[in-house]
């Protein structure tokens, strides 16, 4: 080697080496310098030992138990909105910065503590009860769940909407400009050429309460019905929204998310509990139940109330008495190996729950394992005499004569020509009381009694009065009009159950016959301390009958209102009613909305002009373009598709509030997304929300809303609790969004200002009346909610007054100015007392009265045969529905089995979803939660995986007739063979997954991570048997079909 060459190489090596060194060690160099200058190469923490953990909010002397508060921090009790459970929580924040430090549970609240502490407990004592002092805080634990602990991040989320937004550019383009609130109100109310795309009708023009929107079909109601207001619902603010929608604006079209939440269950439950108005539902009394079957509900994994059920289940299976099974296509956290002797998972073929339940029913009836003492009591007096806590219509006779005009109805006293009498009033009663009594009598049949057969002699008799009646009968009864074929309800159920053999049922649902028999025996071996529970897993196209069949099992063991049995909940202290202090229900000029809901619900098709027209024209009035739902509430699932199909009619404007159907309703995105992009197809879309989600991304305007702990509200508990409770939502923090005339802009302010601008009743001056007839204004949300609080505080025995000490430490001081400005002097301290405790709660000790539940379900009696169901018809087939539970396969709206259109040979699998135990449908936006679990690989059974050549971790394409997504395969044994399972809560395309441009600010780019995973609803189905756009729903009640979707998978 020449010297020069050598030198060159050496030089190059030196330079290269030196450069590499310099680059590689820059980091170290920086760390060194930073370390030398600042003492650490990283970030300094508050404490050398505890890092950035904040100072404790208070301390408790270990010897004396004395409490010392940290003056720099505040703990306040309000409501969580991490999921739709709405627990009471304690929010701890720094007073100076209003930075939330941590959220845990409210010890007074039954959803957060078990048992919750007595309501009269002084606040200070309540805090001590959470501490380590004498181990109190262990039993006294008041918790927030993982989500609840994380969702505080929504308050400061960079994706929050803080100003009124108006879209620039096409719908859904993600470009917005912040506008003044006045401008928003003006444009929304007055309309005009708002986007340079042509004239848009404003709310003022839409609100026409006189002109029929469709002269050919006057029953559809006035033109005002062309506004729909939709919301998730149930966050303690719905009454306000309904006040505006129904009674002030006067449109019929308000709907909440119920129809894609769990309405199949609510409808099935309503049918079994005899309540198809409010759709009563119950939950097992976990603490005292001895055997429970969870089928299509997953307490502890999801379930309402999530935390309380989880806690109760955990206790019951370890130190309590509970033994249980979980029947589910996918195993989840509702079961636990550590308590293996107390619980078991039983896989079921998706969508076949009615087969399983009918098998159970058949076995129980055939083997006479039902609670005969309960079922045989035909009425309240008999039940009382027999020591039962409820009664049922098992013995009531149903007219089964095909030709009888009242076929399917119960045989009544009048049918037999018996004199019909009205029960006398008890004491003096007001007209309202008299009306209520008569309604009750009508419901219970006391006005025209049901007919039953006496056990001895078999003679017909009214259901009223003491004495049991005959359970099984089929035959003819003599009536003034000749013999009439009748059956008892229980006979009808038995006949229905006998339509298939146990073998067949077992084959259909994939649960061995022996297992079914064992379960049936076990279920009927615990007296009234056995219960069956269901919920979201029934959301299939046959969901109504799945739920009806499952929940009828409870009726067979007569467990309602018993300790260890089923509870319909403890009730609430009403806030928004015609309360003891203020009437928030009624107001001057209140509109009574008229017409047919956009979703064609709660209105029999047979009463429509269309029916009459078609009938008159001599044509077959069936099928209709889309199903009518005779006993469903307004169905959000049907709103948008009905609008776009124009059947029964179309909207002019949509206001959505805190809801996200495009993400949450199976198949809706596929059905309407393109149409939503077109302003001509839906002229005005205003959204009120804290965030931009998959639905309101297509809005024209977004009204910023308070989130989490910044809002007002009042709500009861959904179910699964035994004592009365009302949870308060109040702004424990200053709302972060823009203000209008000093008030934070939010949903309520929007409705108030719109109403005032339009001069609608119920808002503005003199909008609220008190019990003495004085009137008060409604200019701010507080005007309404604080009066609701007064109603709660004064319900029954009024609560105590708050003392100065508690006022000082509760954080209520923040709203005390509002309270005293708004309320009467005598009310202020009571209302403050209620807010200081995060609501009003009856003591846990009131749960039981002897062996019974204190708060019994008494409003209706239990149904073995539901008359309303049995006498209603499908508007598609014209056929009557079955009034008892029955087995139905997965079907389209016209009753055709899904399998005919989507044969197994092509669609070998059934796709189900289950709720994430961590995420709710929007919680992905909270990084402290999402860091724990931010992705949902798709579960597939080991054998199926083998069959399709899929290995763990493979990329797979999951396809349904509704579309396809790509996911990672989680090959496991915990999925029923034949099922594929997607965890719900992932696969977002908004809520931070996409960065929007707002004026000159661009939202941060999450790198797509907030959009990780897949959403089953993106591959949800349409109903090909329907005209126009549609989503597959339950064929009877119209709830969303989001489980048991035909699917196939392939490796990619």
């Amino acid at each position, binding site marked *: 080697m020449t010297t020069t060459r050598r030198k060159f190489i050496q030089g190059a*090596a030196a330079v290269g*080496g030196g450069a*590499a060194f310099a680059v*590689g*060690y820059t980091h*170290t160099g920086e760390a060194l310098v930073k*370390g*030398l200058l600042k003492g650490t190469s990283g970030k300094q923490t508050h404490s050398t030992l505890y890092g950035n953990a904040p100072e404790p909010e208070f301390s408790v002397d270990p010897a004396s138990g004395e409490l010392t508060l940290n003056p720099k921090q505040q703990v306040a009790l309000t409501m969580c909105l991490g999921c739709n459970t709405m627990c009471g929580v304690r929010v701890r924040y720094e007073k100076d910065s209003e930075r939330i430090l941590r959220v845990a549970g409210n010890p007074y609240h039954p959803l957060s503590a078990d048992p919750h502490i007595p309501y009269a407990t002084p606040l200070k004592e309540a805090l001590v009860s959470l501490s380590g002092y004498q181990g109190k805080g262990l039993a006294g634990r008041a918790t927030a769940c993982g989500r609840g602990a994380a969702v505080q991040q929504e308050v400061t989320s960079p994706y929050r909407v803080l100003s009124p937004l108006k879209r620039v550019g096409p719908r859904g383009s993600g470009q917005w400009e912040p506008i003044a609130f006045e401008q928003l109100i003006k444009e929304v109310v007055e309309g005009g050429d708002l986007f340079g795309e042509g004239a848009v009708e404003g709310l003022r023009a839409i609100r026409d309460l006189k002109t029929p929107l469709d002269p050919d079909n006057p029953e559809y109601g006035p033109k005002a019905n062309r506004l729909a207001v939709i919301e998730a619902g149930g966050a303690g603010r719905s009454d306000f929204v309904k006040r505006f929608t129904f009674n002030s604006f006067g449109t019929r079209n308000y709907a909440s998310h119920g129809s894609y939440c769990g309405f199949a269950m609510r409808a099935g439950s309503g049918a079994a509990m005899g309540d198809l108005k409010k759709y009563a539902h119950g939950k097992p009394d976990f603490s005292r139940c001895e055997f429970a079957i969870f089928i299509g509900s997953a307490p502890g994994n999801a379930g309402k109330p999530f935390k309380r059920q989880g806690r109760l289940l955990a206790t019951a299976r370890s130190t309590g008495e509970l033994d249980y099974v979980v029947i589910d296509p996918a195993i989840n956290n509702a079961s636990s190996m550590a308590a293996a002797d107390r619980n078991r998972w039983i896989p079921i073929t998706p969508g076949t729950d009615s087969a399983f339940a009918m098998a159970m029913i058949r076995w129980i009836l055939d083997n006479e394992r039902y609670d005969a003492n309960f079922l045989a009591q035909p009425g309240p007096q008999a039940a009382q005499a027999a020591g039962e806590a409820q009664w049922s219509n098992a013995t009531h006779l149903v007219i089964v004569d095909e030709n009888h005009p009242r076929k399917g109805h119960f045989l009544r006293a009048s049918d037999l020509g018996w004199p019909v009498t009205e029960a006398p009033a008890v004491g003096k009663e007001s007209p309202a009381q008299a009306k209520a009594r008569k309604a009750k009598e009508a419901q219970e049949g006391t006005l025209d009694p049901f007919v039953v057969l006496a056990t001895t002699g078999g003679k017909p008799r009214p259901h009223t009065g003491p004495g049991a009646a005959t359970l099984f009968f089929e035959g003819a009864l003599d009536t003034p009009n000749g013999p009439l074929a009748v059956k008892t309800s229980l006979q009808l159920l038995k006949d229905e159950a006998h339509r298939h053999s146990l073998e067949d049922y077992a084959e259909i649902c994939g649960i061995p016959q022996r297992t079914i028999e064992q379960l049936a025996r076990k279920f009927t071996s615990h007296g009234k301390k056995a219960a069956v529970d269901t919920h979201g897993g029934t959301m299939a196209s046959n969901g109504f009958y799945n739920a009806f069949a499952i929940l009828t099992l409870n009726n067979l063991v007569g467990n309602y209102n018993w300790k260890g049995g089923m509870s319909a909940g403890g009730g609430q202290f009403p806030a928004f009613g015609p309360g003891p202090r203020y009437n928030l229900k009624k107001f001057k000029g209140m509109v009574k909305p008229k017409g047919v809901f956009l979703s064609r619900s709660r209105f029999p098709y047979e009463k429509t002009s269309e029916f009459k027209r078609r009938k008159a024209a001599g044509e077959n009035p069936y099928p209709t373009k889309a199903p009518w739902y005779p006993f469903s509430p307004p169905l959000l699932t049907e709103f948008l598709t009905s609008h776009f199909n124009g059947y029964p009619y179309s909207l002019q404007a949509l206001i959505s509030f805190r809801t996200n159907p495009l993400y949450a309703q199976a198949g809706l995105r596929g059905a309407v997304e393109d149409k939503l992009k077109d302003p001509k197809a839906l002229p005005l879309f205003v959204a009120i929300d804290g965030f931009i989600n998959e639905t309101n991304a297509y809005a024209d305007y977004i009204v910023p809303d308070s989130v989490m702990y910044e809002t007002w509200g009042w709500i009861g508990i959904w179910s699964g609790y035994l004592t009365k409770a009302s949870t308060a939502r109040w702004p424990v923090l200053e709302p972060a969004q823009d203000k209008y005339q000093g008030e934070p802009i939010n949903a309520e302010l929007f409705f108030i200002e719109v109403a005032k601008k339009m001069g609608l009743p119920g808002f503005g001056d003199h909008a609220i009346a008190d019990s003495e007839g004085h009137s008060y204004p409604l200019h701010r949300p507080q005007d309404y909610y604080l009066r609701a609080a007064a109603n709660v505080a004064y319900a029954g025995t009024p609560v105590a007054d708050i003392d100065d000490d508690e006022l000082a430490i509760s954080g209520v001081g923040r709203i005390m100015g509002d309270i005293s400005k708004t309320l009467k002097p005598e009310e202020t301290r009571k209302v403050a007392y209620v807010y200081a405790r995060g609501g009003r709660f009856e003591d846990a000790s009131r749960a039981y009265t002897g062996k019974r539940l204190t708060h019994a379900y008494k409003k209706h009696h239990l149904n073995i045969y539901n008359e309303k169901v049995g006498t209603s018809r499908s508007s598609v087939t014209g056929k009557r529905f079955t009034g008892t539970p029955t087995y139905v396969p997965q079907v389209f709206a016209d009753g055709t089995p899904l399998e005919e259109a989507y044969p197994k040979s092509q669609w070998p699998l059934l796709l189900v979803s289950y709720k994430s135990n961590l995420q709710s449908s929007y919680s992905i936006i909270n990084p402290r939660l999402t860091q724990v679990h931010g992705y949902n690989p798709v579960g597939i059974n080991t054998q199926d995986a083998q069959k399709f050549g899929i290995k763990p971790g493979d990329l797979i394409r999951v396809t349904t007739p509704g579309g396809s997504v790509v996911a990672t395969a989680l090959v496991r044994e915990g999925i029923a063979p034949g099922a594929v399972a997607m965890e719900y809560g992932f696969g977002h395309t908004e809520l931070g997954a996409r960065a929007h441009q707002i004026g000159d600010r661009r939202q941060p780019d999450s790198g797509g991570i907030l959009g990780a995973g897949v959403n089953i609803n993106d591959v949800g189905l349409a109903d090909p048997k329907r005209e126009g756009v549609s989503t597959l729903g339950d064929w009877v009640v119209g709830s969303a079909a989001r489980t048991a979707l035909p699917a196939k998978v392939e490796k990619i």
Partner: protein
Amino acid sequence: MSPHIIETLNITREPAWLPWAVQYFFLIGISLSAVFMTLPAFLMDKPKYEKIGRLALLTAVSCGLAAVVALLADLHQPARFWHFYAHFTPWSWMSWGSLLLPVFLTLLLVYAWLVYRADLGRLADRTQSVLSPVYRRLALGNRPERWLVRPLAVLVTLAALAIALYTGMEVMVVKARPLWHTPFLPSMYLFTGLVGATGVCLLLNRLIGDADPGVERTLNRFLLIALGLLMLNGALWLASALTGLSDPARRALAAMSGNTEWWTVAAWAGLSAIVPFVIAWLKPQGTGLITGLIAIHSAWMFRWTVFINGQMLPKTGSGLYPYHLPTGAEGLLGILGTFGLWVLIIVLLSVLLPWNGRPGPAEHAARR
């Protein structure tokens, strides 16, 4: 394999010892092993080994210097290195290391200086550059007292042994890592260190030395022995694992067994010992560059496997933690940086110092 248990939710832990640690243990292992290779020449005064001794000395010094820098970088708080001395902790091997390392390096530098001293003097005389006063000063006078080299050789050897002991023990005592917690580990370090040191010498012989075929043959024979020891050691570990004699070894093997990724790495490591062994055996001459490179690679791979793959084994959870070599300072850049530093040191030393006892380039320049 149908697992009976599927982990559906867990968290990962990132390695606390970054690739920097691999570099440190790699370089220090080579450095201390190279010290041993200087002994025939400078302790036993065997002129036959003079060339190898000098190559080894250059290796020891350059690697030793680069090693400390890598070690510093592996500290997440490098500026706090003085805490080691402020809070000496006799029961911690790492604390001992913090004492031993400067001792070793100092002795090594003195040793090298003593070896080079005579040459430095000569250099100072002959060079007519700015450097000559520096050389003169470095030579500390003109009378090279070569006798001091031997006691220093003994001392530095002792220090090297201490470093070998501490680096071996530091890792071996970690009971929590079955792959580390084995008596075979310190010797494995030593043998791979020897392999690496021989490899570096082979490389330097070619690149900056005179590519002496005799030296190459001797070094390849050296390599044969080192690799033999390494494979024997490895085999013994494997045997202890398979027979269950050593519980940690058994557990380590069990933990890795289900994993194809791991077996690829293991096979690679095995091959990178066998291949140079075979080459060095069959053709000890003319292959120095290849055997040298593979040997270096082998020594590096071993440490990479032990440290990085070792830390990918969850201590309680299933399978492996995912690890993707970061491209930044905590990964690739760091690795390249260390090698860069080492190259820089080698170049500087070889250019500026009379490392091989013959006139350096500086002299050449002066002579012209």
